[in-house]
């Protein structure tokens, strides 16, 4: 019965055979390590975010006067509303964490190199969209941190040369952060969330056309070096997903301070600046850069460069060897870059106080230095 129906559909629109070809029989390199689990983890996190987000939107009110109260209704009035919101907040942390690790995997093993440049570019576009979505989502509850975080970002945006005032007017729609701004960010949050789904489809299509990279960075030479996606990688992804589920549960239940900000439990008050404005953890490296660079505009440019430079890697790195496994110098560079990124975040969280000021500046130099040095790396190692 089911078979007959599937056959009937497939003869008219070959989606069934395409799904079998791409997600069951698809040949995968045998030697993929645990770093290749993050694609599946990200897909599941994204579905979780869409399901919880759409549910939250049924009650949330994008209005400066009502947003905070509507979040309280979700937290205290709607059955299991608190759980759905906690899952949404934890999902954001899981998604951004997995995305950073997924991108590091791509850099370390040279997954950005030909013929996978489009995989890389769609991935970086996905990061940009995810960051906009996460920022907009952080603003929606309209608590103190929502308001003052938005104040920092829109302030920096307004300081951009030439486009600054127009861009600021477009986003704020008013002379201050208020109703119009909040409603626009609600629309942005939805639009970019669904843009992410679209980009993911293109991203996966690009991976499947170019074939996945592997830790050795050399394509499988014969069918003997590949296995079908199912059951080999479905089983492996299931194991990875179970571990990710454990991390998700531990964060949500026992470390909610990481995924949500207690200071945001105070309603937004435009007349009272909080003593300490700190963004969500996944923006800390960029927050560190904004603090290190003395000019607001240059700080914003530095933050943009911190995302654009890795996006240019297919053209910055001209070595024919893909994987850092076989490039000792590049391996050190990648570790330096990752350490720099993490240290920048820690320095940002500590407001560059004391030794963090020095550590943050060294980290920024290390991070950018790697991308500057990559084009000069030896093209043909002995």
């Amino acid at each position, binding site marked *: 019965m089911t078979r007959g129906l599937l056959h009937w559909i497939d003869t008219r629109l070959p989606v069934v055979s395409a799904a079998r070809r791409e997600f069951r029989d698809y040949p995968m390199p*045998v030697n993929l390590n645990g770093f290749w689990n993050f694609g599946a983890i990200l897909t599941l996190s994204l579905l979780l975010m869409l399901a919880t987000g759409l549910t939250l939107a049924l009650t949330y009110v994008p209005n400066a006067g009502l947003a905070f*109260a509507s979040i*309280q209704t979700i*937290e*205290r*009035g709607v059955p299991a509303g*608190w*759980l759905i919101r*906690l899952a949404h907040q934890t999902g954001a942390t899981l998604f951004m964490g997995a995305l950073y690790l997924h991108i590091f995997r791509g850099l370390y093993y040279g997954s950005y190199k030909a013929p996978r440049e489009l995989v890389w570019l769609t991935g970086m576009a996905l990061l940009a969209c995810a960051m906009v979505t996460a920022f907009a989502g952080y603003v929606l509850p309209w608590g*103190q941190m929502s308001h003052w975080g938005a104040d920092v970002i829109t302030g920096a945006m307004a300081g951009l040369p030439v486009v600054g005032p127009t861009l600021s007017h477009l986003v704020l729609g008013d*002379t*201050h952060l208020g109703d119009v701004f909040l409603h626009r960010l609600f629309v942005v949050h939805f639009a970019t969330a669904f843009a992410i789904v679209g980009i993911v489809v293109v991203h996966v299509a690009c991976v499947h056309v170019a074939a996945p990279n592997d830790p050795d960075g050399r394509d499988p030479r014969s*069918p*003997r070096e590949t*296995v*079908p996606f199912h*059951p*080999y990688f479905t*089983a*492996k992804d*299931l*194991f990875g*997903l*179970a*571990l990710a*589920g*454990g991390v998700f*549960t*531990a964060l*949500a*239940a*026992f470390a*909610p301070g990481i995924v949500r900000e*207690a*200071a945001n*439990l*105070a309603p937004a*008050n*435009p*007349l*009272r*600046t909080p*003593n300490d404005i700190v963004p969500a953890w996944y923006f800390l490296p960029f927050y560190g850069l904004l603090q290190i660079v003395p000019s607001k505009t240059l700080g914003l440019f530095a933050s943009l460069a911190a995302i654009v430079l890795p996006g240019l890697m297919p053209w910055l790195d001209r070595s024919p060897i893909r994987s850092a496994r076989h490039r000792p110098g590049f391996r050190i560079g990648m570790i330096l870059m990752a350490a720099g990124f993490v240290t920048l975040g820690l320095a940002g969280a500590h407001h560059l106080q004391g030794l963090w000021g020095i550590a943050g500046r060294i980290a920024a130099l290390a991070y950018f230095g790697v991308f500057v040095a990559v084009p000069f790396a030896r093209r043909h190692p002995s």
Partner: protein
Amino acid sequence: MTRAPPSSVAIPGTTIPGMAPARPTGNGDITGFQRATALWQGLRGSAPERGARLALMAALLAAAPAFAAGAAPPHQAWSFAGPTGHYDPATLQHGFRIYADVCAGCHSLNELHFENLAGIGLSAADIRRIAATHTIPDGTDAAGQPKTRSARPDDAIPDPFPSPAAAAQALGGVPPDLSHITMTHRGGPDWIAAFLTGFVPPPPGVTVPPGRFYNRFLRTGVTAMPPVVASADDARAVTTFLQWSADPHLNARHRLGYAGLAYFAFLAALASALKRRIWKQPRR
């Protein structure tokens, strides 16, 4: 940007004659922002006014180091702390009684509805009875006159004052809402409990204006709130109740957390066994 119009609202202990008072901060202390605003306002106006204000400003700023010496609250062991943290219904109900008898006279608990009190173990009948003791506005009648009715379980817990301005008129300041106070006030539950029992005679040289009280855990030292909580035990109970108000789903969250961890550990073990078995099979 809307600014608070000058009014008779004053922050407890920081009334400066002739100056537009800064907005209440909700924690009874002067923030740096308010100090900066006060300084800016002190520099405006006619010469004699400016002189008087600057003298007051200088006094305020000179006193700042003494204000900053608010004692650090002692760290306490709370039932809700850590991964095994939980609320005990008896403590929550004890805390609620103190809140209802004492705190609710001045402070709002805006985010809570009566029915939420089921979370501290009160029965539906208890909640109906508690709600019915409150009278709340109920629109207007045919003649346009405001009507009232007794509250029901699905009503929000009403504010003790009809408006912040009325509260300021009666108390000399707007008492902060307590819904999330243990999570938004610096120092958290430790500070709240310490503050409630921190009323001591002022140190020599510190004069407390009439209607104000000295508390050693405030940076300003002075508050409009009188000492109302009788014992350390009561302070701990009401702090626990307020922590529940700020984070009401802790018990359920921890219970679900352990169940979820057990589930994913079991799933990971099964998936690992399955994966190993599949990868042992001869490949195509």
